[in-house]
């Protein structure tokens, strides 16, 4: 029998206060259902979450680091896209 490794899954957890699922790590599992079980045991032991997503890592299509120049640098010269040209009135907190 071939010693085939289980597929890798990326795990996303939504915390009680959180609005969106956040990537927390990855794990191996026999299938999606077991990946949820494993994620529950590995990543929610300390009450970190109330919802779990798992996605097979193969399904994630990532940007190429070699394309960083063309993908991200053009925005460096466009500071006007940041909301930094406003005076924040006194008394406004948490900005």
């Amino acid at each position: 029998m071939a010693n085939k490794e289980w597929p890798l899954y990326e795990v996303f957890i939504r915390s009680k206060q959180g609005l969106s699922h956040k990537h927390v790590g990855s794990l191996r599992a026999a299938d999606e259902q077991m990946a949820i079980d494993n994620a529950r045991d590995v990543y929610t032991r300390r009450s970190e979450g109330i919802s779990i997503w798992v996605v097979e890592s193969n399904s994630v299509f990532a940007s190429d680091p070699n394309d960083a120049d063309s993908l991200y640098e053009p925005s460096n010269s466009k500071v006007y896209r940041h909301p930094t040209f406003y005076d924040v009135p006194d008394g406004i907190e948490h900005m």
Partner: protein
Amino acid sequence: MNALFEYLLRLGDDSLILGHRLSEWCGHGPILEEDIAMTNLSLDLIGQATSFLKYAGEVEGKSRNEDDLAFLRFEREYKNLLLVERPNQNFGATMMRQFLFDAYRKLFFERLVHSTDSQLSAIAAKSLKETKYHLKHSSEWVIRLGDGTEESHQKMQSALDDLWKYSAELFYQDDVDEDLIENGIIPAVDAIKGEWDVLVRNVLEQATLIIPSNNWEQVGGRKGIHSEHLGYILAELQYMQRAYPGMKW
């Protein structure tokens, strides 16, 4: 003999001994994820044992606490099922043992929640949530390994062949139970047995496993008559308290 005390020992010892068995997997799991999963199950069970034995100590009224009961009784005073002291063997066999036990425990706790004893009802409510997950996990593994490769199927079938004779003790009843059932403190066993049969047969069928035709029933644990394995478990479990009485850490 106080029936409630005796019964609490049965509940507590089932959780304690199975929890200890699962803890033996710590650092030896087939994969990291499952190593953590089994340790989680173990901690849930030891937590349940703490609740049951603490209450047992209060009911007994001889100022023994949960630690005294867990660490300072002799083999014949343990009232756990023979099933839970069976050795881990391989991962599949551990999951089969877990499944047979979880299926019973879930159905049992669902009813124990309605106990006339408020303390038992509260412990049951907390434990039920944990046990539902245990059952989900163990039954998923039984199905996947039973209906898996030729090798995994064969291992699961021999685990079932080995453990089946110990499953009858889940429904063991004697005079300890009778009074408690009559007073609504614990649920009647008969209804649980019916549902357990359906649940277990359904999962084993999906797992393509065959229930052994041999119907020999091995019992004894509830009376303190154990297999050779319990002594070894207790030697390890109790070593510290026996060697250094009263030691705390």
